[in-house]
């Protein structure tokens, strides 16, 4: 494997709130190789977004305590000064967000908002920046880009706005694009278009993508590698095939088992994982999934490290069960993996 582009080690993010300290991200480590699409999946509150925003330096605040390392080339994104972060943003590491409806400033023309990012980082004349903005809009598939550049965000549809966001993010040809649930707010047909667009840039320009999502369908479409997050921790990290065909962590089984599929006989109920996600204010001791896991045993009181246990290189998980047990315990229902058989 080539040297990683981005290397995150032991990232911890705590927020002090009135109710106590929220352990939003707990010892997260992962690598992103050049041109790799890494999907980060997990339910709401699992720390996906906070991890991404921290890499961008957007969670810095007097109430936040951030530790660990995140090396991008010669820069540690955790320790970099605000001024350094400013030059990294959009230049090397860009981000698009969940809701394209509100992510663009309503009072500026779309083209001008792209011009703004160009001129914040490059010595470039307005006209030239404008031409470049039009070119970028063309590149992300916006028809009549010269006219559309003069339009305001409210004159764009949701999918068009997300395209405009992507154009803005790619303006300075960053090495990594973080896409935080980029398709969640969009229609299904538009979702596929946006994903195809991301995949296109990934393939044509070797753009690495960190794709945050809770939609496993999206993951299966474009990811090379998948991180499964739960309760602020990465509980499993493997290639797309490893995660989908040989998942090691019971939570991953549950996640896969709860996907609705049209090509499978209709169960009376959709399988679900019983219980509630852990409170990050007061997480359970040991494995965070322990209270919901039907297979927990004494050892689960200790936090399992993120290690290669399945025997395959590059496939890491945080579960004390041995690979033999795991293969026996996961539920196979008409060829599909699950945590427990769906209740009748």
């Amino acid at each position, binding site marked *: 494997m080539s040297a990683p582009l981005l290397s995150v080690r032991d990232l911890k993010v705590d927020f002090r709130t009135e109710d106590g300290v929220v352990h939003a991200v707990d010892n997260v480590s992962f690598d992103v190789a050049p041109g790799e699409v890494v999907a980060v999946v997990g339910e709401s509150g699992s720390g996906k977004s906070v991890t991404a925003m921290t890499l961008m330096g957007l969670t810095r605040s007097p109430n936040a305590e951030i530790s660990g390392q995140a090396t991008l080339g010669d820069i540690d994104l955790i320790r970099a000064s605000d001024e350094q972060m*400013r030059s990294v943003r*959009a230049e090397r590491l860009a981000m698009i967000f969940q809701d394209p409806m*509100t992510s663009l*400033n309503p009072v500026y023309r779309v083209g001008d908002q792209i011009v703004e990012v160009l001129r914040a980082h490059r010595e470039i004349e307005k006209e030239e920046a404008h031409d470049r903005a039009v070119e970028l809009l063309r590149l992300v598939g916006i028809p009549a880009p010269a006219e559309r550049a003069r339009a305001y965000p409210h004159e764009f549809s949701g999918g068009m706005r997300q395209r405009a966001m992507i154009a803005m993010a790619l303006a300075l040809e960053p090495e990594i694009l973080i896409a935080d649930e980029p398709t969640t707010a969009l229609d299904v047909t538009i979702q596929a278009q946006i994903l195809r667009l991301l995949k296109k840039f990934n393939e044509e320009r070797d753009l690495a993508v960190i794709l945050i999502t809770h939609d496993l369908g999206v993951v299966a479409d474009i990811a090379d590698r998948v991180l499964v997050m739960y309760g602020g921790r990465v509980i499993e990290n493997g290639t797309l095939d490893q995660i989908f065909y040989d998942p090691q962590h019971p939570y991953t089984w549950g996640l896969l088992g709860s996907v609705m599929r049209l090509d499978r006989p209709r169960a009376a109920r959709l399988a679900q994982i019983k219980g509630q996600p852990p409170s990050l204010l007061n997480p359970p001791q040991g494995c965070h999934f322990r209270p919901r896991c039907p297979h927990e045993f004494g050892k689960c009181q200790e936090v399992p490290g993120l290690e290669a246990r399945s025997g395959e290189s590059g496939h890491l998980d945080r579960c004390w069960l041995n690979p033999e047990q795991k293969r026996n315990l996961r539920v196979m229902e008409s060829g599909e993996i699950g945590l427990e058989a769906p209740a009748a």
Partner: protein
Amino acid sequence: MARFIARRLASMVLVLFAVSVLTFLIFNVIPNGDPAVRMAGKQPTEQQIEAIRKEWGFDKNIVVQYGTTMKKLFTGDMVSYFTQLSVTKEIWKGLPRTLSLAIGAAIIWMLFGVALGLYSAMRAGGISDRLLTVLALIGISMPVFWIGALMNQYLGFELSNKLGFELFPNGGYVEFTDNPFEWFRHLILPWFALAILFIGVYSRVLRSNILDTVNEDFVRTARAKGLSERQVLLKHVLRNSLIPVVTLWGLDFAVVIGGGAILTETVFNLQGVGQYAADAIGQLDVPPILAVTMFGAFFVVFFNTVVDIVYAALDPRIRLESGETAT
């Protein structure tokens, strides 16, 4: 945008017509008794009343009465039966004074309001923010006739005695065209007396707008673009937070011209339109009150329209909501 402006102007004309009809009704029709008697003042002779009745057409039907009133209002042959002076001329005489007061005060309250609001928002929750909150509340709570009187007494009168010369003159007005410096010197105290209330209000409104806007997704986008904190704050946060404040500004400015400056003008003896109205009200001199009411209403309606147009220029979404496609 051009169509939007045209439509706004057309609806302004309609509103002005409605306002003029209402004012006419309130003054001449709704009160009991003979309007000619009310206008004539104290102890008029029968002949005087009869002359006024003829002049204003009070013996004709209501539509003619309205027409006569409007004609008198706009041709300038409306006369006060107390002073025998032309009402229109008096208003024209007072207008530059009222405008000088209102424009200066509006600039002051906008500048100070924005500066303090921005500062407060940036230090939200801190000691200086809390101090400014208290100061703003005090400013809002002080009536202008009181703060004006205090200014006159301490900054106008006693300070002059102490210094041996007049730093701030004790009331009065000098035409800008006669002596710009004296004009300025005479207006400083009235400007601030009038502006203090608005500074308090505007700094509070802007502060809360900023604190709302800071959490908007597009501000996060602006940061993610690698803009400097200064650019984020001025171009994205402040620009969007100012839209409602500018609206407020236009309306308050109109209200000040259309009667809101009565107290300030009277306290500092500026002899503007407001003071003219106050004097007329004191004597129950109906024609000037009628004229000033119309004048005030026209200003408020006119600036409402201006605000609508400016608002549409500041926030492109407004144009669309009124059925306009952006150009």
